[in-house]
């Protein structure tokens, strides 16, 4: 580990009276990285972002950018560029004037401002809109202006607060790809906040999953998806089924034996299980839908039930299977493999241990 982290959050805390919004958040971000703060609403991700921007004063902890402690600096002295969720475009200024605002604050010469603005206008595909007022732009155009305005000042860090949440679904996808491309080509260290796990997984280099004010897991998308640290993370990222059952035994080589209420036995290697689980105690089996395949009932490593509901998704069909004891299982059936079983049909599902995890049992269903 030779390179000094570009951004370092050091045990950041924020308390509002008795409420803890952010608890001991520590994170290191390398230069050029795009990191997502991901979590449900209220998890503290936006507060953390606003502390980095300087709009919220941390109760304790420090923020370092390029080695400098900026914790006490006001927002207009930090070199952060921010894209707001509602874009916050100045309604009385044109697109060009909005983009030029930050440059004018920095005292750049008029000619230089003009050329930088027109560069940014073509980079963000805003040609022809320079003299329009924000109210006259579409949502997508407004978003691009907001991004342009933040990028043109060449910030050390780019901060984005749910930048795609106000766009419709199709636009969201294309915009995030474009943003990723720009961020990558500029090598701009960026942090963005989102509650959309698909978005985070799609474009972030690393994801910091947050819950209740703390960071519960940090890692690359694939790592978090395949090896969720807790049931919360597993539930939040991607889709999964959770089955309650019993841990019957742990073999000498570490293989955990899960017994479903219907009696079937599923073996899961130790690497994919919570540590310190007690035998003959309840536990939870997590299954990713893509790790399940059709099989005949009774084969080892399988569960049997009946098809309850089908949901056509295009390239695959989501099959909701009702097990004997009433629990439900979500299976992903590839449409290309042929028609899915019909409603009410009895089916068997084979479990791929690599797509499974055993968690400690929690009281929440």
């Amino acid at each position: 580990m030779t390179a000094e982290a570009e951004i370092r959050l050091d045990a950041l805390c924020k308390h509002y009276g008795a409420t803890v919004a952010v608890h001991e958040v520590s994170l290191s971000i390398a230069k050029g990285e795009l990191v997502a703060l991901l979590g449900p609403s209220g998890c503290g991700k936006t507060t953390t972002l606003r502390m980095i921007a300087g709009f919220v004063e941390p109760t304790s902890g420090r923020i370092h950018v390029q080695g400098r402690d900026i914790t006490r600096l006001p927002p207009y002295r930090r070199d952060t560029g921010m894209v707001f969720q509602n874009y916050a475009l100045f309604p009385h200024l044109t697109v060009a004037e909005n983009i030029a605002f930050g440059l004018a604050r920095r005292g750049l010469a008029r000619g230089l401002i003009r050329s930088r603005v027109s560069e940014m206008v073509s980079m963000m595909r805003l040609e022809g809109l320079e003299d329009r007022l924000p109210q006259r732009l579409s949502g997508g155009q407004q978003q691009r202006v907001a991004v342009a305005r933040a990028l043109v000042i060449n910030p050390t860090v780019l901060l984005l607060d749910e930048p795609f949440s106000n766009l419709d679904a199709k636009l969201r996808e294309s915009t995030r790809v474009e943003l990723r491309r720009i961020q990558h080509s500029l090598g701009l260290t960026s942090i963005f906040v989102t509650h959309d796990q698909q978005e985070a997984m799609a474009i972030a280099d690393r994801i910091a999953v947050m819950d209740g004010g703390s960071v519960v897991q940090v890692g690359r998308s694939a790592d978090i998806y395949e090896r969720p640290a807790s049931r919360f993370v597993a539930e939040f990222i991607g889709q999964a089924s959770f089955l309650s059952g019993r841990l019957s035994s742990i073999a000498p080589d570490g293989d955990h034996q899960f017994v479903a209420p219907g009696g079937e036995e599923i073996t899961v290697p130790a690497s994919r299980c919570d540590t310190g689980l007690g035998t003959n105690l309840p536990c939870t089996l997590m299954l990713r839908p893509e790790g399940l395949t059709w099989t005949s009932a009774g084969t080892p490593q399988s569960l049997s039930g009946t098809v309850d509901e089908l949901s056509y998704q295009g390239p695959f069909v989501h099959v909701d299977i009702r097990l004997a004891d009433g629990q439900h299982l979500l299976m992903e059936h590839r449409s290309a493999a042929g028609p899915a079983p019909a409603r009410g049909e009895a089916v068997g599902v084979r479990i791929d241990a690599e797509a499974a995890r055993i968690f400690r049992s929690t009281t929440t269903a």
Partner: protein
Amino acid sequence: MNSLRTPFGATIALLSVTALLYLIIPIAVVLIAPLGETGYLSFPPKGLTLKWYQAALADSRYVDSFLNSLWIAGWVTVIATLTGVPAAYALSRHAFPGARALEALFLSPLILPTLVLALGLALWFNRMGFVAGTPRLIAAHLVLCVPYVIRVCLPVFRRFDRSLEEAAANLGARPLHAFVLVMLPVVRPGIAAAATMAFITSFDELVLALFLADPARPTLPVTIYSAVQLGFEPTVAAVSGLLVLLGTALLLILQWLNRNASQ
């Protein structure tokens, strides 16, 4: 629900039109009655002449008091805006203990009878040796107009989107710059509306002027009021008619300005 085809819709429309007539006819009367030939006012007017209007425009009593009212209203507007806008800004942005009570205090002259304000001020000014004259009427009008300014500006400031200020700060603008470059342009229409309200309130005001104005330099409402007490003559009606025209002109100007601003 407004459909004329239903008895309900028809009733509502009928009552509404009646209400509009009820509102407009007395004002139209003021405008039209002085067009009559006769030396007494009647409606509908008998004959058609502009002589009363001409007389009104030539009468120095009315012209002088009109200019006086303008002068006073002008000063009141400037001082009320300079005093009230910062106060409204401070109240809207910063929660401090007593802010609510302060806000109630600032708005309270609006609910009090103007007569009570006039009485209190007249006694107080006399006691303080603040002699009858235009400055003391300007001071008195402030008590009436600053609350209007604050009442109009408070929601404007409260509605202001904070993220615009944050964006400005994020882009490097220090607080004063952010205020001037971002907040002021956006709240400007609200402040203009507040100033307009203050001006109109001061210009039209009667009671405070009756108690406190310099008898030698009355305001226009006072001149009209006194003239009416003396006799019911067409010239006074013509002056009132001119004020109606003035009000209409003001309204049209405001509409035109608003249309430009929002478009």
